[in-house]
């Protein structure tokens, strides 16, 4: 063994790491919340909007899903200033994450909407509800319920992918880890600790989502 572990350097920067983790959490939650709104609107547009809207949403989804997140972030952070919009790294990171997760979540929610039995919509219409009311009161919640697991993993992926925003100097967990290792050079130890923190965050997210599910979606669907 040519390597000797020294974790004290890592733990000396513990506060700094926690700051980074906290920014990761804030970015993830913010992007998730706003991304959900974007995704629901886009999914609605994609399933029942007029043709130009559907077309525009498709372009958005395809471009985002088929290019790397890193490039998207670069374009937002370095590109927007050329049109006069100067954003702080945190805000730019948040926007990039919203744009990114919005595209993925749109497709997920669309699948949920399409999984809703036609009879549900017909029953709503037959009761006299307008199409938007049918969507809002009848389709949306069961649709989210069916795709809840997919949404959950998408959000955890979002949290993990937030590490890429270190490229524009937003000081989230990975960025902090890299900063610390550039000062202490104990990169191996730091990566172990940071991996552990990510795992803990992911587990906490899972638990949180499970809790939300139990509160909001745990109605019985099947008697068995």
């Amino acid at each position: 063994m040519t390597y000797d572990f020294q974790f004290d350097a890592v733990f000396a920067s513990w506060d700094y790491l926690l700051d980074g983790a906290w920014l990761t959490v804030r970015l993830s939650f913010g992007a998730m919340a706003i991304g959900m709104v974007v995704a629901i609107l886009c999914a609605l547009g994609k399933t029942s909007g007029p043709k130009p809207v559907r077309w525009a949403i498709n372009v958005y989804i395809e471009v985002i899903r088929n290019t790397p997140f890193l490039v998207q972030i670069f374009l937002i952070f370095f590109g927007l200033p050329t049109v006069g919009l100067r954003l702080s790294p945190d805000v730019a990171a948040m926007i990039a994450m919203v744009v990114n997760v919005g595209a993925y979540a749109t497709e997920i929610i669309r699948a949920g909407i399409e999984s809703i039995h036609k009879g549900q919509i017909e029953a709503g219409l037959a009761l006299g509800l307008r199409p938007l009311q049918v969507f809002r009161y009848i389709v949306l919640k069961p649709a989210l319920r069916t795709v809840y697991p997919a949404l959950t993993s998408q959000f955890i992926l979002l949290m993990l992918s937030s590490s890429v925003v270190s490229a524009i100097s937003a000081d989230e967990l990975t960025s902090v880890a890299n900063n610390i290792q550039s000062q202490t050079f104990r990169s191996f130890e730091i990566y172990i600790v940071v991996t552990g923190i990510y795992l803990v965050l992911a587990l906490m997210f899972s638990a949180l989502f499970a809790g939300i599910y139990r509160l909001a979606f745990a109605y019985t669907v099947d008697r068995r």
Partner: protein
Amino acid sequence: MSADVVIRMEGVQKWYDQFQVLKDIDLEVHRGERIVICGPSGSGKSTLIRCINQLERHQKGRITVNGVELGPHHRQLDMVRREVGMVFQSFNLFPHLTVLENCMLAPLKVRGTTKAEAKATAMRYLERVRIPEQADKYPGQLSGGQQQRVAIARSLCMNPKVMLFDEPTSALDPEMVKEVLDTMIGLAEDGMTMLCVTHEMGFAKSVAHRVIFMDRGEIVEQNTPEEFFTAPKSERTRSFLGQILTH
């Protein structure tokens, strides 16, 4: 048009692409009348009643409901749907809402009634279908028969002038058929105008004023239940009744 005609269909035709599902349908339903529609699978029964509240659009002919004509371009759709209740084979209760919420949704959002009023109405109809005690359960926790009764109550909460039923008992276990039919008989006794697609011939015999037999998109025969079962006019009716009643 006599005052008490609730539904009038004149020369109604409908296609799916090349395939004609309804061929020149003429039908009048009077206030308080109870009509049973039967016929082989694919004959257009569902399509017929779904045209009445325009879940399906027809391409030719006129449909008038409660004096409002459903033309190919219409704004009156909303008006008509409020007045026409529909009960589906597969219940179609909203799984994420409790029984009570299922019943309150449309009065609240469509009629704009107050919450208290909507709740009172809902409870009244849930009592009517004899499951007020299930009000706070979710549909998934009920048996099929109970679900279908909730579906009937939910429609009644909108206080409709006509009720459409599309094979309301055919997705039910045999023991539950009766409880739903009993509810429907109760409705009939109160004078509700009803159009009912069903193969429950006992029900047809006991409550229908008229039985309509459809085949390949046409109304082949219309008759009183007595005549229909004992002396069917057409050959097609006879052979259909033969299949249904033997086993």
